[in-house]
């Protein structure tokens, strides 16, 4: 039981770190290149622990994002839940991919989440007016190998299984 609680602690901590990273101010030009840290952490846990991190965790994390960013409640929640669903569904394949191929999957997942968000933004008439909107998909895929290794080391160190 104690063992399980420490898992929840580690998973929560990584999510908090990801939220903090997505809030840290960057120079103005770099703002649109910020990787989707929260989404990457979510995808990692979905692949690594599909039994404990699943769609509902994705939904909750997305909901927190909605509150933080000030978008419509449910907008990121929906996108993140769908990404979590796909990641859990495909976790056995993604796990055995080489890192660069994993990065491609992450690109697809992040792009899908962004697409869902931009649809909603379009419906309420606030669509972003720049192609730079899609940059997080690319930058997330670029730094995925390092994120993956860091998260794996964390997971092993704290014995989260």
């Amino acid at each position: 039981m104690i063992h399980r609680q420490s898992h929840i602690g580690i998973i929560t901590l990584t999510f908090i770190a990801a939220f903090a990273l997505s809030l840290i101010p960057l120079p103005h030009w770099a703002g649109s290149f910020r990787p989707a840290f929260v989404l990457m952490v979510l995808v990692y846990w979905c692949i690594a622990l599909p039994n404990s991190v699943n769609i509902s965790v994705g939904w909750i994390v997305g909901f927190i994002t909605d509150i933080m960013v000030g978008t419509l409640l449910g907008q990121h929640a929906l996108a993140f839940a769908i990404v979590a669903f796909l990641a859990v569904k495909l976790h056995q394949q993604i796990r055995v991919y080489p890192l660069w191929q994993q990065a491609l999957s992450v690109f697809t997942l992040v792009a899908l989440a962004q697409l869902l968000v931009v649809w909603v933004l379009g419906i309420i008439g606030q669509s972003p007016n720049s192609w730079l909107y899609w940059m997080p998909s690319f930058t997330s895929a670029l730094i995925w190998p390092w994120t993956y290794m860091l998260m794996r080391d964390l997971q092993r160190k704290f014995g989260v299984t």
Partner: protein
Amino acid sequence: MLATLSVGLMVADHKQHYLDVVRSTLSIFLYPLEYAVDLPFSAGSWVGENMSSRETLLENNALLKTKNEFLQAQMQKYVSLELENLRLRELLEASKRVPDRVLAAELFALDFDPFSHKVLINKGQRHEVYLGQPVIDAYGVFGQTVAITPLTTSVMLITDPNHALPVQFNRTGLRSIATGTGSLGSLDLQYIPNNADIREGDLVVTSGLGGIYPKGYPVAKITRFEQDPTQPYARVQAEPLAQLDRSREVLLVWTQSSIDEDVAP
């Protein structure tokens, strides 16, 4: 199931304002995180202030003193002008213009979304901030409040693509609407006829027509005026005077009308 819930939530949030309470309650839990991310930056400036040598402090102090004297000298002129204005208005039996109440607030060093220009400030419901309240900095109009929690408020900058601001040219009195472009350095001025008398460097101030911003605060300087006979309106661009990306202190303004509204019911 979750998908239906999300869609339901989105619709409810968009159409009605039932969920404002939920949002502001839940965002209290995010306050520690926001505070923690901002901490290194405010600590950095605090350390910088405390470590600066005595000479720099003295130098700064002298500089501020001269500046203060200069501003006070200007203020004297302004006070007499204001009194004169009041007398003239009384003669004309026009309504009196009363100075607005202000409150200083500090920005959190946080980035939310590079495409909507919003910032978070450290004053909220507890300080009687209201929705749609104008925010200015030392140089010009900054933005308006869009979401309020007990301790923080998010402010939409005037350069947000979804922001529009009724303005007036200080020199000619021509009215227009300044809309955000999504880039911090420029505003678009809409519905200006091709034959308008506009020069580069013209000052644009708030016209007070929208009912949100009080009249007469400086907004921007004209940087480009392009006449195109094939288009119904001229293309006019302006540069905001407020230091949207550098200010750390801003002022919340209570306009006279908003105070009256509070008293009336």
